[in-house]
């Protein structure tokens, strides 16, 4: 590796050269090449042909001749070629590689030509004169590489790029190479990544559902609503990062799905350790990072078309993504994407879940320029979701609620029927994002300036008297996020510094719930990452200052009611440390430790009333303290040819954990709050000390190349420190076994697979009955199956893939502890999903 300063100096020279693309010849003899080289610098590989025309002596066979045997009758001095491939450490091609051939021109200045690298990683230079050249390759997420070549005959040369955050490239071979590559990719951070192929098998379902396959991830569900949960942590404690910015929404609501378009993601990373420094101080449970695909840099349009159908809810989804470069403008690229979904009411084995349909219309567009030294990208995204809330989830008083719990089926089930209509209660959610990302390589390091505006509009329509129009809850949240980052890297270290500023406004209208508020938040952070031969270390610290003003009218007096104003300020520091050690080629360890701080969210401070769909009277508390979390995570993986074993253990101690707990009287009985709708058990948000211990294990056996058995287990224990009281809504023990048969090729099929799975969710026996409304439902087993293959694939990137998935194959009746439906009804039954993906 070149030292940082040399590299940056070279980059600076290249940048100045960019504006005046010059003749790429060294001697006057190469006159014909002089005329062609500006073209070569901009055109894709098919255009390498002009160079060949100019030098007809070079036969293709000569070009492909291995370097060990230079042809006897060597071509003329200025018709030499460098060809080969650029790939990652496993030899796989890398997307969007920029490859430059750098040389000294007649004036002795450094000059270059850009060479196109095709999809399969191969490249071929234009005709060159003999002399000294440097090949310089760079790609997003990889370390830039420069290698010197002395050209006297045609050369085949292979360039290997190393991932930016990995100490060593993942070793190839063995069953679980992919998983290893993924864990490496995350550097010292602990987590899992879902790549495009895996996401394709989950298209058409909400984000929370799509990432459920990752160990330790569950979802809090309410029929149509699915909220991701990681290690028992969810909502405002589990930040979702979309394209580098925190997704800003009314995330505290249990029935508020994250407004993220899963089609916009090329990769979703589930960070299980400390994500605290980069993405905010409060990610005690980790974070979900949704990454869009990079923009292309070369002309040519490609795209993907998705069609998904599912029997349960008789739902259909169509999606189209197009991207391309701009002819004559290397470095520029664009991407547009849109998808639409229509779903009817879901079906349990015995009855329809009335009014659980959904309509979704999402889209995004992005355009930008990028080279090795600078880049700018503008993005617009829109998520629009209308969904029905199960008719049976009526807000009711405690007596009726308790009577319903005792019933086997929802009350009035005989009137339930399948349709696509969305009736009250229902939700309309609209999320718009406008973002700008930019970077510039300076003598100091890589400077990034990013800004995003998010507008989250959520309207909830209760079942009310028929003369009432409009929503009963109307939230309007606008967030303006800015960040300035500086990444400085040396040969074996990367250091990042950043400052962020956030301005947020929340307007609320409707039945009494939360106040309007305005928040200013500023933060500064620094991170240092050091790479050793077989280990890496990461430390970071962050400090956030948050200032919020709230405005709420008192309950009595209508338009003349006085406005109550509060001002709250919080200081939330966080510190993280991580280590990654590759003990041997087979053994890999990661350790993460973090201190995180989370300020109370708006509902925890202000809510005062009966919660919808649950028979509880909830009260917030303005005196709540910030949560301080101390977390340690250990991740170990052992990879052999026949198996891979991976274990992640974690311990979190959350001091002043904000917990909605029943309010007890002197006798230890739950207090009752009287309202005009009867008495409700009283729950208050209070600070407790909580402790969460858990374990995710995965064993993948590959006794044969085409056979894999995957065993997963997730276990978590959570309780209040001191009293030992169990926390509510902690996922029960979960075990999953999947048997997969796969081939690289089978007749006309590419990568066919067939899989069968069994998942057992135990009964949650560790509960405080007082803190819940009903005892936990019994454990259950679900069977599933899936199959798929690529039906067609050609060299131009056109392909057609199909996946079929059968969920809840036996149409098992069950209730889930993490679902609010469990007080009222069963979960949805059998579902057969067909997914088609075509690329062109």
């Amino acid at each position, binding site marked *: 590796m070149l030292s940082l300063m040399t590299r940056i100096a070279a980059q600076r020279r290249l940048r100045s050269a960019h504006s005046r693309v010059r003749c790429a010849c060294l001697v006057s003899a190469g006159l014909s090449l002089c005329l062609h080289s500006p073209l070569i610098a901009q055109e894709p590989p098919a255009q390498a042909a002009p160079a060949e025309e100019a030098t007809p002596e070079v036969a293709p066979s000569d070009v492909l001749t291995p370097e060990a045997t230079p042809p006897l009758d060597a071509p003329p001095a200025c018709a030499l070629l460098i060809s080969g491939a650029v790939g990652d450490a496993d030899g796989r091609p890398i997307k969007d590689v920029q490859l430059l051939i750098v040389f000294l021109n007649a004036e002795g200045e450094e000059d270059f030509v850009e060479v196109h690298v095709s999809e399969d990683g191969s490249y071929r230079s234009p005709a060159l004169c003999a002399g000294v050249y440097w090949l310089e390759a760079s790609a997003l997420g990889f370390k830039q590489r420069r290698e010197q070549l002395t050209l006297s005959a045609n050369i085949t040369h292979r360039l290997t790029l190393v991932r930016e955050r990995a100490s060593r490239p993942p070793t190839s071979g063995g069953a679980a190479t992919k998983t290893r590559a993924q864990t490496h990719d995350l550097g010292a951070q602990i987590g899992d990544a879902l790549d495009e192929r895996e996401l394709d098998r989950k298209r058409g379902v909400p984000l929370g559902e799509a990432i459920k396959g990752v160990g330790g991830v569950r979802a809090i569900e309410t029929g149509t609503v699915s909220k991701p949960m990681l290690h028992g942590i969810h909502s405002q404690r589990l930040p979702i990062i979309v394209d580098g910015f925190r997704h800003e929404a009314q995330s505290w609501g249990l029935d508020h799905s994250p407004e993220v378009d899963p089609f916009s993601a090329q990769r979703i990373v589930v960070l299980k350790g400390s994500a605290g420094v980069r993405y905010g101080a409060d990610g005690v449970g980790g974070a979900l990072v949704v990454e869009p695909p990079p923009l292309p840099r070369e002309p040519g349009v490609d795209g993907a078309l998705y069609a998904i159908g599912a029997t349960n809810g008789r739902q259909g989804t169509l999606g189209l993504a197009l991207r391309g470069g701009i002819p004559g403008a290397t470095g520029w690229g664009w991407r547009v994407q849109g998808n639409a979904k229509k779903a009817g009411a879901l079906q349990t084995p015995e009855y329809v879940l009335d009014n659980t349909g959904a309509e979704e219309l999402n889209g995004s567009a992005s355009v930008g320029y990028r080279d090795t030294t600078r880049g700018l990208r503008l993005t617009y995204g829109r998520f629009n979701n209308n969904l029905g809330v199960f008719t049976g989830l009526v807000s009711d008083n405690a007596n009726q609620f308790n009577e319903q719990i005792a019933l086997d089926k929802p009350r009035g089930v005989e009137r339930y029927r399948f349709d696509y209509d969305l009736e009250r209660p229902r939700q309309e959610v609209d999320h718009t994002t406008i973002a700008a990302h930019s970077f510039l390589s300076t003598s100091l390091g890589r400077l990034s300036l990013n800004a995003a505006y998010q507008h989250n509009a959520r309207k909830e329509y209760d079942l009310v*008297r028929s003369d009432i129009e409009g929503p009963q809850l109307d939230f309007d949240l606008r967030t303006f996020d800015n960040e300035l980052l500086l990444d400085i890297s040396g040969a074996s270290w990367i250091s990042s510094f950043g400052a962020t500023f956030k301005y947020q406004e929340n307007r609320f209208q409707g039945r009494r719930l939360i106040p309007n508020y305005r928040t200013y938040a500023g933060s500064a952070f620094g991170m240092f990452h050091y790479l050793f031969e077989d280990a890496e270390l990461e430390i970071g610290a962050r400090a956030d200052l948050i200032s919020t003003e709230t405005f709420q009218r008192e309950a009595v007096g209508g338009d003349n009611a006085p406005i109550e104003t509060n001002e709250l300020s919080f200081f939330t520091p966080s510190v993280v440390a991580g280590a990654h050690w590759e003990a041997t080629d087979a053994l890999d360890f990661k350790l993460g430790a973090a201190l995180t701080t989370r300020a109370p969210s708006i509902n925890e401070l202000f809510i005062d009333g009966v919660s919808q769909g649950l028979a509880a009277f909830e009260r917030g508390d303005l005196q709540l303290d910030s949560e301080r979390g101390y977390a340690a995570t250990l991740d170990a993986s052992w990879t052999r040819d026949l198996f891979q074993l991976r274990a992640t253990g974690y311990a979190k101690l959350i001091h002043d954990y904000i917990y909605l707990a029943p309010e007890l009287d002197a006798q230890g009985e739950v207090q009752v709050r009287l*309202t005009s709708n009867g008495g409700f058990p009283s729950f208050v948000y209070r600070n407790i000390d909580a402790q969460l211990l858990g374990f995710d294990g995965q064993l993948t056996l590959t006794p044969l190349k085409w056979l894999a058995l995957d065993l997963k287990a997730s276990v978590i224990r959570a309780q209040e420190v001191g009293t030992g009281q169990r926390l509510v809504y902690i996922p029960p023990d979960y075990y999953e076994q999947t048997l997969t048969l796969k081939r690289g090729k089978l007749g006309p099929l590419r990568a066919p697979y067939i899989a069968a799975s069994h998942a057992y969710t135990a009964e949650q026996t560790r509960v405080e009955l007082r803190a819940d409304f009903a005892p936990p439902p019994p454990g259950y087993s679900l069977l599933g199956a899936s199959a798929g293959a690529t039906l067609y694939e050609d060299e131009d990137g056109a392909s057609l893939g199909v996946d079929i998935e059968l969920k809840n194959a036996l149409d098992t009746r069950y209730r889930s502890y993490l679902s609010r439906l469990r007080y009222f009804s069963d979960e949805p039954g059998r579902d057969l999903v067909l997914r088609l993906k075509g690329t062109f």
Partner: protein
Amino acid sequence: MIIMSQESTGAADDLPPMILSRFQVSRYTHPMSTALACLSAVFLAACGEEDLENPAPDNAEEVITTLKLTFTPEGGGAAINAEFKDADGDGGAAPTQTPINLTAGTTYTLELELLNETVSPDDEEYVIGDEVRGEAEEHQLFFTGTAIGPVVTHAYADKESDYGANAVGADLPLGMKGTVTATAAGMGTFIVTLKHQPPVNGAPVKSATSTIADGGTDLEVTFQLTVQ
């Protein structure tokens, strides 16, 4: 920056170190915050400071603060009143309530009224009873409790058609008017429940056979009833 300029109060000193300050101010606009807000306003297209700081009042449409029962003896005499009142709605202060005291051997006409006293009496949402009467076909009041039977009997004395055209199904009772007969001395609970029974998928829920179990509950008040 913003925090530094705040005036600290004594209360803030008692707070744990993690919280810099926390106190209420009647009106607070720091020049810096105005500047930043305006800067950000470039991006916040529909940025209106006015409505942020002057929030709309709570939606009054579904709030019932007050239930009034008026028992008028048939054949004359002073009416007996009972009331449940939660003046500020569900949250905030606890509700107040008065008991029902009737005389044995007397038959009363019972009239109910529902109010939303979070708004002023001239607001159209003030008399929620009117809304209920207007949607008599989707509402029904039920009278239960330990007093019903041993101590008093209740009979409906109104029909949907009393409050408007009876468009759907049978002409069923609503319950805003009734007859209560105090049969024997004793005491017990007298529970008034208002059920909202809107149609599901177009099929009416309120019928001759529907019960207190059907639909959603808009109101449930338990009175102590004594017959002397």
